[in-house]
């Protein structure tokens, strides 16, 4: 089997960012849209401040991860902190409530309409 673009490493830096935590808040989907509810403040952890700055407009979890240059899991942990303290709100995707739930035809018709209008 061919290996994909995979590498191994010791991500010590990531444990610093998350204070040693590695379990993420699974409620954040890759495409959950995050919105800041307050301004970044001095004394905040820099990653928290950057997220609040990025999410003045709705921003997907995966975009936050790309902008911060951090793995998805780490970003989910940081977002969990911010959500718990009411500093962000999250708009979760309709289509991703569970692995088994499949999108309905009404939603798909809307997607199709959007694509055709591109």
């Amino acid at each position, binding site marked *: 089997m061919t290996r994909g673009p995979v590498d191994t490493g010791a991500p010590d830096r990531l444990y610093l960012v998350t204070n040693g935590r590695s379990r993420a808040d699974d409620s954040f989907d890759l*495409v959950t849209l995050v919105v800041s509810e307050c301004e970044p403040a001095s004394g905040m952890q820099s990653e928290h401040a950057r997220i609040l700055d990025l999410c003045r407009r709705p921003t997907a979890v995966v975009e936050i991860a790309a902008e911060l240059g951090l793995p998805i899991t780490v970003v989910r942990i940081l977002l969990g902190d911010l959500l718990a303290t009411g500093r962000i709100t999250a708009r979760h995707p309709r289509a991703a409530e569970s692995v088994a739930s499949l999108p309905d035809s009404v939603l798909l018709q809307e997607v199709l309409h959007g694509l055709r209008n591109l």
Partner: protein
Amino acid sequence: MGSATSELPSHRTPLSDTAETGLKIVVVGGFGVGKTTLVRSVSEIRPLNTEEVMTQAGVGVDEPGGVTTKTTTTVAFDFGRISLDERMVLYLFGAPGQGRFWFLWDRLFSGTLGAVVLVDTRRMDDSWYAIDRLEHHRTPFVVAVNRFEDDTSRHSLDEIRQALALPGHVPLIDCDARLRRSGKNVLITLVDHLRALAMARETTP
């Protein structure tokens, strides 16, 4: 490709304040098949790159002497974005179709609308595994053949369907991943297929 981090926020194109629903479509395929090219051709932003880390006890790792150690691996993938209307935003992910990536499928791509398997006829073997894994995860998909100019074989779609042992109900189309209208056509073919599946499901008691 690779795990280079993305550009600085100053280049960002923010979403509309009214955006409320994110949707996912995944483009799977082997290395160099044109996943990023396809994402770029339809995306409203320059494709961004991100990664996920995975810590697992020796999964897929051959340890000398049978010692199992905890290893951390990084899987990189890129993505683009299409604002469909005021509320809906479609994210298009280009994902490596092989190996350990599939261990992350549930964590990253649960709730995905569907997938596009991008095929290079010169390396058809790469597609087998992706198709097998998508079937395993019960993710509906279409297959798009990215026609490369230096592909002299020009296999017909029928021949390709046979080579991939692809069931008749799975749409199979040609595309040129570099062209926006072609990329758009691939996405429309997928969503049309998904809608037909959903309608069939909804009318069956």
